[in-house]
């Protein structure tokens, strides 16, 4: 068995600053909560995934065409049009959202109780604070990255112990089902395998 990973409270983020880390920890814990069936974002170490993605090519938008002129206020249907890359969006939007939480609910997001956090996230999703267009993508990427981290191969830092795969019944990186194509309407019984060969 692999050695236990660093506890999230002791994890040293690659790029997130302490306040950003605190926000991400708090936000993903609401986006995929831990109670009820199935693992939450915290047990699956989604914050680590997000930190690593933001520290890497995704955070830097290395693959994207990021040359101006920019029209951040264009219709959302026209895709990513902000001059900021995802990391910058997190860096700039978290303080804005925290300020809004403080003004509206009296505390920064991470310090609110769960119910208020849910309310605040809903407001963010609905853009009730009319965030500036450059930061418009914030809730969208936050939620997308959270789900990505929940479902991606564990080597990216999230989906710890393949827990999300086990929960829904996805066999991971097996990719070999010839003998099962014809077994119609029978649930496939075998647990997942990860890219590194971890078995679940």
């Amino acid at each position, binding site marked *: 068995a692999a050695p236990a990973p660093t506890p999230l409270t002791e994890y040293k983020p690659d790029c997130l600053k302490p306040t950003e880390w605190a926000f991400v920890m708090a936000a993903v814990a*609401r*986006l*995929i*909560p831990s*109670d*009820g*069936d*199935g693992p*939450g974002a915290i047990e699956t170490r989604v914050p680590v995934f997000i930190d690593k993605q933001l520290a890497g*090519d*995704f955070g830097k938008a*290395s*693959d*994207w*065409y*990021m*040359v101006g*002129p920019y*029209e951040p206020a*264009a*219709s*959302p*249907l*026209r*895709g*990513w*049009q902000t001059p900021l890359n995802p990391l910058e969006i997190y860096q700039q939007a978290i303080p804005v959202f925290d300020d809004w939480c403080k003004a509206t609910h009296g505390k920064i997001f991470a310090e609110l109780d769960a119910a208020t956090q*849910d309310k605040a*996230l809903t407001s963010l*999703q609905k853009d009730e604070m009319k965030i500036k267009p450059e930061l418009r993508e914030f809730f969208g990427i936050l*939620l997308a990255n959270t*789900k*990505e981290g929940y*479902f*991606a*191969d564990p080597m*990216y830092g999230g989906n710890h112990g393949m827990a*999300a*795969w086990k*929960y*829904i*019944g*996805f*066999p991971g*990186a097996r*990719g*070999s*089902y*010839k003998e*099962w*194509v*014809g*077994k*119609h*309407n*029978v*649930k*496939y019984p075998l647990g997942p395998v990860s*890219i590194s*060969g971890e078995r679940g």
Partner: protein
Amino acid sequence: MARTEKKKDVVLVGFGWTGAIMGIELANEGLEVLALERGHDQATVPDFQYPEMIDELKYGIRYGMMEKPANTTVTIRRSLDETALPYRSLGTFLLGTGVGGAGTHWNGLNWRPMQSEYHLKSYVTEKFGAGVMTEDMTIQNYPVTYDELEPFFDRFEKVAGISGQAGNVKGKIVEGGNPFEAPRSDDYPMPAMPSTWDGVKFRDAAKAAGYHPFPSPGGIASKDYVNEYNMQMGPCNHCGFCERYGCYNYSKSSPQTAIIDALKRKKNFEYRVNSEVLRVEKAADGKTVTGVTYFDHKTGEEVFQPADLVILTAFALNNVHLMLVSGIGQPYDPVTNEGVVGRNYAYQITGGYTLFFKDENFNPFIGTGANGFCIDDFGIDNIDFAKEGFIGGAYWRAGQTNGQPGHTMALPAGTPSWGAGWKKGIGEWYGHSMNIGAHGSVMSYRGHYLDLDPTYKDRHGRPMMRMTYNWHPNEIRQTQFMKSKMEPLAKSMNPTTLQEGFKKEGAMFDVRPYQTTHNTGGTVTGSDPKTSVLNRYLQSWDCHNLFVMGANVFPQNTQYNPTGMVGGLAYWAVHHIRKDYLPNPRPLV
């Protein structure tokens, strides 16, 4: 000019499906052939190898195999009066790069167009009257007939290695196949693939409704296979990582499985990677081209590569861009309706139903790119345009391609997008739903075209290509028609619940979700140089030693995925290059 390379007989711009086909056929002719490929070299092992390849985050979500917009992209606007904005991050279509091109990460769905699609303009006007066309519609006939192309469709299917069930062999209808397909000279080279539960359920319901279901034809090997070039495939195991991924299993038709190792053995063939063609160079008199200039990313130099024959095989959008930046052919002007390069750009319209079955198990991770069953009962040949009020058609398919949870997770309407409700939803519904899709034709219109963007430049300082495109009422009517027909069929299957996804009136082109990479037109083939860029042999009207391959030659889009037609046309064109052009280089028409 930094460097000039030794002259070649033929230079191919791009080394994907069409580049590989032209390459092997012309190399077999004994010519010195050079393929220039902008991307990297790649082979099944190590580049698509198990298990590294089947990584949803890297390839399915971050698009690891695709050309990065940072390197190449387009700008997009929905109408002439909008300012085009760059397509900065990938969404609606995905461009291939590297050896094999998009032929490495396609789904393999392989079709020949329906019979009316080859002479659509005549078919419409003769059968229903020109009045059924909208005023701005610019559809045309192909300058070549199905009968002329049939041997080449057959050839491409056998080279690529397509699995399927014939429906019409030489006019004889074959039980279990597509009775509406154009008559084929021979069966598919491999039997059809087995289907998962969702496809079988659809087949049974369609049959019960009086439709004519048949297994989806695809470049997915149902057995071990050896093609005419002695290249091999192994049987697909429904790995569920097909589209967006290279096949680690030697099972998906690709230039790699069908052509490349055989081609590499030829001493008169050479390919250079990381070599991005910037433009085709014209001779002083503009009657011929002299070769191409490319950027060698390894040395950082521009290189002039002289050649007697230049063939663009760089994928539809890139081929059009190259024609525009090279100044070959008059660019299209939508205001005057004059000019040809960039004209008749079209796309694909899709829609469908998702059906949820609480107590059934679909094992959604078992899938292939071309899984399941189809019907062509609402194909373009079977629609009364006058009665229904649109021109077009669609084929329907049910067959899961993958169960990758990060980007393929159907949840019933009303499930929250996050929080406890979402988590409950994925636990309850993953593996308990299926989809039926309609894949519809798109006509060409005066307002849909490609030209050079006035503002944005690519990394070589060339103007980017600008795409002007939006959903047209004709296609909205077509897709809404499909919805009206699909709903009763879906309900007949008694799902726990179901939901639809069809475009409605007023729908605007949204670049964010993936739709298809079926970009067509821009340098269309035709019989009149005023309305086409290429003659029937895909030869440039302007420069006779320039040929252009790809879906960019389609006068309008068909109701099918393009590659079967692209491959057939490539074999057709190269046959005529070998037989008619090489012995006597000249304009063939």
